[in-house]
């Protein structure tokens, strides 16, 4: 009888041990991917230090519990010694965790200084506008006029790419147009919330220096509504010379001279407000170019695209209000029904009829 009880205990032990081994091996990835910024290197070292300390505590405590479970299982009816406490031991084991957490605190504060340091003159400053459910990255230039800055806005089909040079301090100014979002790049080991603030209050800023060229994916990390999972973006880091060439080309291509609209073209008025168009049906003459005079009445970027099935027939640029108007010149369409939508907010859509 006793032997089978003991055997059961051992089987239990084996099961518990196996379970932990399996969990640890399968779920075993407890180390982040290779850090990609100088700040992330600091966080990474700190993390490894704390992980090692955590591992020691884990093995020590769990080991003691498992040992007790086997060593002190009930063998007979004798009542064990009734130990009520021991002041010296209790003082010691109050001091041990205090020392451990103080060490962690001191190292954390040291690392925090490095991670949060701001340089006086970042090489590149990008204004990040977060909104439901996309990003606009606007590259600040020297003329203090935000309206002619080069910018990239993502769409549901095309997540935005932030192109950046390596080896230079990069500053991001995080501005929200609606709810709270969070700018998160896992390989940079950092995120910072993008908080909507009252007029005149400073936005959060994030600074980092990328060490290696490459593509780093990121996404919104603060739950921000229905399309939260779709707020992906990526960072494309390249050598300084490549970046210089890229930004020059991007800026040059940014403001093409607007062509004069044909004098007799039909003008369709279209407005956007509260993430919705003011109509879900537009009628235009078939076979003739026409103009969509699109007014965006809110501080969230919108555009108008015209699609037939999944095929793009026209795609207008993004504009951001309040009360910004653009004339989209749409080429002639054959007789038929088409879809029009804002590609940033695919729920904003309607039918365009050419007749």
């Amino acid at each position, binding site marked *: 009888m006793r032997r089978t009880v003991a055997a059961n205990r051992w089987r239990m032990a084996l099961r518990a041990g196996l*379970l932990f081994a399996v*969990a640890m091996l*399968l*779920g075993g990835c407890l180390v*982040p991917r290779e850090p990609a910024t100088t700040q992330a290197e600091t966080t990474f070292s*700190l*993390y490894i230090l*704390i992980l090692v300390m*955590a591992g020691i505590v*884990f093995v020590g*405590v769990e080991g003691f*519990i498992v040992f*007790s*479970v086997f060593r*002190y299982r*009930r063998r*007979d009816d*004798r*009542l*064990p*010694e*009734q*130990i009520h406490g*021991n002041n010296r031991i*209790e003082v010691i*084991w*109050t001091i*041990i*965790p205090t020392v451990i*957490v*103080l060490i*962690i*605190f001191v190292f*954390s*504060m040291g690392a*925090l200084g490095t*991670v949060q340091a701001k340089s006086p003159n970042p090489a590149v400053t990008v204004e990040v506008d977060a909104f439901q459910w996309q990003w606009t990255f606007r590259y600040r230039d020297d003329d203090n006029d935000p309206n002619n800055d080069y910018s990239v806005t993502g769409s549901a089909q095309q997540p935005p790419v932030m192109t950046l040079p390596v080896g230079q301090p990069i500053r991001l100014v995080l501005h929200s147009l*609606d*709810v*709270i979002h969070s700018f998160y790049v*896992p390989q940079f*080991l*950092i*995120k910072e*919330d993008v*908080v*909507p603030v*009252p007029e005149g209050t400073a936005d*959060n800023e994030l600074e980092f220096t990328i060490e290696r060229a490459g593509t780093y*994916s990121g*996404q*919104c*990390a603060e*739950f*921000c*509504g*229905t399309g*939260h*999972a779709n707020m992906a973006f990526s960072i494309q880091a390249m050598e300084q010379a490549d970046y210089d060439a890229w930004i020059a080309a991007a800026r040059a291509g940014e403001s093409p001279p607007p062509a004069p609209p044909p004098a007799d073209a039909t003008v369709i008025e279209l407005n956007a407000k*509260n993430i919705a168009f003011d109509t879900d049906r537009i009628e235009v003459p078939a076979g003739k170019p026409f103009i969509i005079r699109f007014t965006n009445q809110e501080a969230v970027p919108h555009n108008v695209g015209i699609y037939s099935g999944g095929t793009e027939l026209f795609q207008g640029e993004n504009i951001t209000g309040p009360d910004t108007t653009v004339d989209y010149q749409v080429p002639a369409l054959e007789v038929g029904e088409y879809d029009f939508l804002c590609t940033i907010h695919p729920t904003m859509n309607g039918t365009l009829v050419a007749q």
Partner: protein
Amino acid sequence: MATTNLNPRAESYRRSWVIEWLTTVDHKKIGIMYIVNSFLFFFAAGILALVIRSELAIPGLQFLDESTYNQAFTMHGTIMIFLFVVPVLAGFANYIVPLMLGAPDMAFPRINALSFWMLPLGGLLIFSGYLFGGAAAEGWTGYAPLSSNADKFSAGVGTDLWIMGLVFVGTSSILGSVNFITTIFKMRAPGMTIFRMPIFVWTVLVTAILILLATPVLTAGLIALFIDRNYGGSFFDPAAGGNPILWQHLFWFFGHPEVYIVILPAMGVVSEILPVFSRKPLFGYRAFVYATIGIGLLSWSVWAHHMFTTGRVFLPFFAFMTALIAVPTGVKMFNWMATMWRGSITFATPMLFAIGFITMFLIGGISGVILSSPPIDFHLQDTYFVVAHLHYVFFGGSVFGVFAATYFWFPKMFGRRLNEKLGKTHFWIHFIGFNLTFFPMHSLGILGMPRRIADYSPDAGWTIYNLMSTAGAFMIAVSIVPFLINVVATLINGERVGDDPWEANTLEWATTSPPPPYNFDTLPPIRSERPVFDLRHKHDAEQLAIEGTPIGTGERP
């Protein structure tokens, strides 16, 4: 002068059992209703968890659209916290605390009934969003301005019902806490001094004080949120000069003490069970009491560690206090370890769940210390690492404590012991399933998977961990089957085990199982924190007086 002889065991007049239960003010019946009601909500929220895990098993949206998914995780979190873990522990406290103190009932029996009946009402209000165009979908934390601007971001009455439901649930907690505090201070039996109270009573006392101070803050915040949504208030609207971060301060000023509201009574349960099945007193009773009070005090100074990445809190202070709260928690861990050390340990199901609690809660504690470091939190905040951490605390901690309490006190409540074989089956499937579900989430978080996303890219390298996690979730669901069979079968035809089947220590075991309406016919003398142990070993004590033999070194009489 005429004397009236009141027999506490006299038959009351006959009425149907439905009326009896609906109108009862007996703390034991109310406690059982608390527990049953909480388990019903547990199963509902558990089904939502399975829905969430099914959707996340592999990339792509297979079962839900995004808004349904967002409702599912919002309801899962809200129901689990507010309508399962807090009330189920309050239910056990309701049943057990008066018995542990040698009291005939709670101090305010009618308020006790009121605070129970507000729970199903609040819970159904929260759930009823599903009938009116969709439940709340802003997460259980309901961050503004997503939640506060009904015109732009969160249309629909689901969120309003969520707010009002939580106000009811919060009011229920506040009433309950007043009742517990009064009961514990004023209703103790003669001899039950404050330092002879069972640890479970201590943890309930500190919990009640936390509820009393924290919940009104949440209620005020919720009402401000309701005004913002419906009457054009601008507490949290930045466009009108409000501040969305204010909501986070209000929510977490309640929300972090809430974590201890949820874990402290479970710690109390474990501190009752470990000594019984180790046949030793709790090591360092006073240290444990001071650690409980210390946790209660420190819990007021750590709330902003949920807000490190907002860029709007003073990091060193909150990081320091958060690290510091690990110390009293560590002390408790050592106390439990030392209680088992050189004990005489048996492994009945309550003990398995109690050991499960300390081994799993340790992992939650360690990951908590890791998250207390701001630079590391910048990486892990709002990822699955946090989801893993909070489930190791709430599920590995509190829920293991709840099951330990269920198996431990079931014989007291019904006179019958739950079947040990089914209980152990439940424990092992539960334990393995729990780790399979939540351990891989650490890895997901470290690899950068944010929480609250309905879908993820197949290229992200997260699929294998998500698959493991989903398999584990279904394993937990399977483990509930033997538990339910066990409860039903035991109620019908379980083993009758008498008044004190575990050879336990505290006063609730000195009365019958189940206890009579007024709880005690006679009380044993209370000369220590283990009156029933003293009673059982009276012979040892007498022997000590005669022969000078220390208790516990000789054969049992």
